[in-house]
């Protein structure tokens, strides 16, 4: 059965996680993500969600991510949400959790600017999310919704990927998507139960589980790193996700994710009306970056990509890496919490293609 609700993105994220069988949520409040814990606090102990056993507000972002680590080590479905300044504080935990291969979801409702910045939307946590923002070498799967609908469905996808690959999954949204209200469908999601034979839930006879990130022996750490590298390569092969819009005969393709991709869609339509063969590639996974889509488009004759993003240029580098010099790459950046208009995007593409 599908239920429709008119909800904010942050509320949809919370409800979508509950529908996916969320067991526990730990977080520290931060604008513009606070409707996530507020929605979950309202649903805590509701007979609607009998599996939602734990809601706890922590004393800090650090405490929250470490509570998530503890809970995840027992194999339950656990999530936290935050925004930029809090996401920075989560990086220590993400490094340890990645080393110990723990599955859970961290949502980052990206706000503007370094430091405190402001409460407008940006996509400036892209590097921190996609590169492994903590110490050491690791990657996390990063999902990028562009609608309240995807805010509702990505928690289910996130848990599925997190348990399949034993990795933290980041949902990278922004202040606009968090606050935007849209008509949203909540289909009944099959609440997949994931096996966690590695979980630390008490030794059985001589069998016990140790989740540790310390490998003092150099060869041991090297073997661990190599295994992780292979896992990230496998994720890159198998899990690239993207939406293609009017790219069949496109010569120029806009690359955009998240909220700004919606303006780009309008820009593609306007460009088409003007006779420009434009299309759009919208990555839904930022790690793995959908580079296969880029190379496929180039094989079909795309000569130019225009990267539109709400930061000073971050995904731009992933597009350049995917293109490997085989096509032109232009950029349009807005930041500070501001969005470009679709007219700005049309003008940029026309100028670049001229």
């Amino acid at each position: 059965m599908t239920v429709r609700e008119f909800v904010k993105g942050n509320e949809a994220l919370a409800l979508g996680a509950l529908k996916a069988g969320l067991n526990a949520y730990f977080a520290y409040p931060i604008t513009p993500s606070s409707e996530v814990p507020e929605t979950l606090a309202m649903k805590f102990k509701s007979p609607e969600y009998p599996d939602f056993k734990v809601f706890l507000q922590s004393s800090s972002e650090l405490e929250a991510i470490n509570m998530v680590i503890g809970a995840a080590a027992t194999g339950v479905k656990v999530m936290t949400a935050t925004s930029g300044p809090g996401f920075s504080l989560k990086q220590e935990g993400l490094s340890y959790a990645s080393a110990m291969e723990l599955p859970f979801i961290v949502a980052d409702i990206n706000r503007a600017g370094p430091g405190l910045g402001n409460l407008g939307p940006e996509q400036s946590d892209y590097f921190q999310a996609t590169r492994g923002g903590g110490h050491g070498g690791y990657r996390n799967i990063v999902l990028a919704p562009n609608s309240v609908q995807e805010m509702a469905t990505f928690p289910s996808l996130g848990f599925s990927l997190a348990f399949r690959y034993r990795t933290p999954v980041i949902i990278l949204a922004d202040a606009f998507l968090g606050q935007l209200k849209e008509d949203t469908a909540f289909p009944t999601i099959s609440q997949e139960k994931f096996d966690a034979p590695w979980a630390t839930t008490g030794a059985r006879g001589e069998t016990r589980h140790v989740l540790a990130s310390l490998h003092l022996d150099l060869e041991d750490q090297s073997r661990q790193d190599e295994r992780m590298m292979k896992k990230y390569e496998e994720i890159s092969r198998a899990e690239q996700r993207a939406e293609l819009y009017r790219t069949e005969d496109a010569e120029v393709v806009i690359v955009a994710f998240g909220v700004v991709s919606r303006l780009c869609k309008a820009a593609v339509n306007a460009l088409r009306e003007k006779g420009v063969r434009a299309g759009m590639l919208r990555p839904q996974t930022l790690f793995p970056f959908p580079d296969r889509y880029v190379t496929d488009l180039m094989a079909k004759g795309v000569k130019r990509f225009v990267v539109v993003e709400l930061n000073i240029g971050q995904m731009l580098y992933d597009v350049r890496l995917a293109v490997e010099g085989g096509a032109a790459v232009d950029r349009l950046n807005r930041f500070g919490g501001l969005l470009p208009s679709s007219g700005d995007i049309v003008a940029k593409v026309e100028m670049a293609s001229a």
Partner: protein
Amino acid sequence: MMPGQEEGANEYEVRLGRLSALTSKPTHYCSGCEHGILTKLIANAIDELELREKTVMIDSVGCSVFAHEYINVDAISAPHGRAPALMAGIKRVRPDLFVFAVQGDGDAAAIGLQELIYAGNRGEPITIFLVNNAIYGMTGGQMAPTTSEGMVTTTTPEGRDTVYTGTPIDASKLLASLDGPAYVKRVFLPIAPLRAGGLYSAAGPLEGARSVVNAFKVQLAGGFSFVEFVSTCSINWKMSVLDSKKYASEVLAKIFPPGLYKDKLGVEKR
């Protein structure tokens, strides 16, 4: 019975032979270090209370980071100072499990003080053992939050100046000031020299053994339990083992007086 001990005071039985909660691996702890004693006391208490198959131990950062090599239970490593938050996460989703951590003074009373205080304030049903040896052992002897005034460390080469760096933090008193914790105790753990010529008191380890069992019983009854063990670090104090025991009893035990700071459930009276 130890000389001078009250009759019946020691219900504790030292198990002979292999403990199921202890691996066969020799510990890496330095000679004279109390970590090895505490490891044995913990394994003994796990066996005594039959907790092994429901236990998850948290390795903290410091000399206890290898605890899982010696204590034969499920284990997970915490980032530096965050063990209480991990334990809270585990217990909230799985109240049927049993959790504990051995933390150092730097881990619990410096970088992880917030996690410690808030876990205590919420009365999380978890057990924390703080090994207070007044110095950073694993990193090679730097000033700890518990370093005594005048003590020479690698980062206080002229001795700790408490006007400049603050006075030693008393984690037991801090926790006892909160409503949440059920059991807060400080124990002098070292085997102490009674007089020159080789007579030693094992009162510390025996008191430690009772306290570990009591702390575990408090968690099983749903309370937050914390035991601070005043300990030594002869290597980093740059003393002989014997001198370190003397220093601990003559100096540290005065800054950190042993005692029962809180026992809401009355486990010590039973």
